[in-house]
């Protein structure tokens, strides 16, 4: 064989090897989506892989919306979502023939925070928060005593979630009644750690961010009890979030499962593992698990292959988990 020929043969073999290896990744569960849900899914994936050698799980972070884009293209088996699926996404799924099962898997509670040196704020109502955060407050509500006259004549320093985050969407919806409707003159960051730093160093600060960041930094921050629908001020805690009294600033977060993917044993096994081990792992990564009954109901949804969403394509705030689970599911957007 001439040298040239040998070289050609080697090249062919390498290419053949490539295609032979293309079968790789058969027992692979592909997940993408929200960064809020990510820590829980990561924990479940880690445990799942050590319990089921040979099955592989990969998780990406491209935000709830970005995750759904991959989901309706059929590129992922599961989508992490910090809000329910929206009308446009439902329509895309329908167009692509993707059927999804909506599974609430934990609670995320937004926590309103002040500096520990702040002694005058004992609780806040949603109206107080609206006075502070509504778009009309921009450049006008600049002092604490403009919110409530009994509060001191001190500047008000605001810290909030970055405008691309699900946290921002949820907070603005719960407080002003319209997602993304907020004043713009505040320190915004996608990274909640920046907000923790800000509030912990500024005695006039008021900020909001995810519950987990508060739990990890309790010594540097003071959580504000929020007056709920029963007119009772409630501090965010595992108990108050779980029993639904910390409202409206707590919300369920979801995974969406492609129904067709459930035919693959690794995906079905992973989803069942998620619902079974989820509560303990959720607690471990500092989120609040759903009440036990909710996981059971979700398991039933998987077993029966019930597709659709309980939200009809619109986000809602202050919805109790029991109420959510009782609602009929539909793939048709609600008007």
């Amino acid at each position: 064989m001439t040298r040239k020929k040998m070289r050609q043969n080697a090249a062919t073999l390498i290419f053949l090897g490539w295609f032979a290896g293309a079968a790789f990744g058969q027992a692979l569960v592909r997940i993408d989506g929200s960064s809020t849900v990510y820590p829980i899914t990561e924990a479940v994936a880690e445990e799942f892989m050590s319990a089921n050698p040979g099955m592989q799980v990969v998780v990406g972070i491209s935000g709830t919306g970005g995750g759904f884009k991959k989901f309706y293209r059929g590129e992922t088996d599961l989508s992490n979502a910090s809000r329910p699926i929206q009308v446009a996404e439902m329509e895309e799924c329908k167009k692509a023939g993707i059927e999804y099962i909506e599974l609430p898997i934990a609670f995320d509670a937004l926590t309103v925070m002040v500096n520990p040196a702040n002694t005058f704020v004992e609780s806040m109502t949603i109206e107080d928060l609206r006075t502070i955060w509504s778009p009309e407050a921009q450049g006008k509500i600049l002092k604490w005593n403009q919110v409530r006259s009994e509060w001191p004549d001190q500047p008000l320093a605001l810290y909030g979630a970055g405008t691309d985050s699900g946290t921002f969407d949820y907070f603005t919806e719960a407080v002003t009644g319209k997602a993304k409707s907020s004043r713009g003159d505040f320190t915004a960051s996608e990274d909640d750690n920046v907000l923790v730093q800000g509030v912990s160093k500024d005695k006039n600060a008021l900020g909001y961010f995810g519950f987990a960041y508060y739990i990890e930094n309790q010594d540097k921050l003071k959580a504000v009890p929020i007056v709920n629908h029963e007119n009772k001020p409630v501090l965010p805690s595992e108990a108050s979030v779980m029993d639904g009294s910390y409202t409206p600033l707590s919300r369920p977060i979801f995974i969406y499962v492609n129904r067709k993917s459930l035919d693959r044993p690794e995906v079905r096994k992973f989803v069942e593992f998620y619902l079974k081990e989820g509560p303990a792992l959720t607690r471990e990564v500092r989120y609040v698990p759903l009440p036990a009954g909710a996981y059971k109901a979700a398991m039933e949804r998987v077993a029966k292959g019930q597709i659709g969403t309980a939200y009809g394509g619109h986000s809602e705030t202050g919805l109790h988990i029991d109420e959510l689970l009782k609602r009929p599911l539909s793939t048709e957007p609600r008007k």
Partner: protein
Amino acid sequence: MLAAAHPRRRRWLDAAFLLLGAALIVLSLGTLAALLLDLLRDGLSRLSLEFLTSFPSRKPDQAGVKSAIVGTCAVMFVTAVTALPLGVASGIYLEEYARKNWRTAIIEINIANLAGVPSIIWGLMALGLLVYALGLKRSILTAGLTLGLLVLPIVIVATREAIRAIPQGIREGAYALGASRWQTVRHHVLPYSMSGILTGAIIAMSRAIGETAPLITIGALTYIAFLPPSPVTPSPPFVSLSWLDSPFTVLPIQMFNWVSRPDPRFHANAAAAGVVLMSITLSMNALAILLRYRSRRVIRW
């Protein structure tokens, strides 16, 4: 001539400029050193063999950067084998072969402009072209090609600059001895410009290794706890390219994820991953500097 009339003033200006230059160098190196020290201080406690050989985990003290290191190295490999030969060849063509006319002028302007295109745009282009149109999936191959395209203009520009620095006499000497154009390039132009080309390669690869935005766009993962299949197989043909198809993550993405976690112990992990990334970059540069040194040694004009 004002300057010539005041020799003392001229000397004073000279000294002032020297001082300014030295101060600026100290300032920029000092900033780099401070950043590195800060990273080391935060991350040193986490740096260990275990950190390098563990997969990511929800438990900060068990988490490691194994998949991210392998991902970064694999992607950099693809970037290097695509961007460097292509870039150097384009540079040589434009300098040595192409006629100087309006067509090359347009190409030149375009290359200069491409070097300034924000990396996220490259990511979007790669998503549309490589992932969707060419069906390369969200793989190491896609990532390597994306970064390869991103740094290609840098390599081309550096190559051209290096080639331009070679005295015309060298080429004329080669032609006078009867060398063809290719022989001139192969035996004279390329070896003599090698040190400049390698400098360009260092800059290009250092830029690529820190890129996050385009890789997130094309779908780099955050959690991946297995390695791509090995490029060497026990059975014939002994070489496999299936690793190119594998999903992946890279160090900057792993760092970014850790920085934004609530548990402060993850922040130490992020700093440690930063140290690892810096070490990979520095050792890559060291290799290029070594090659440059050796290529300079053989030049005898």
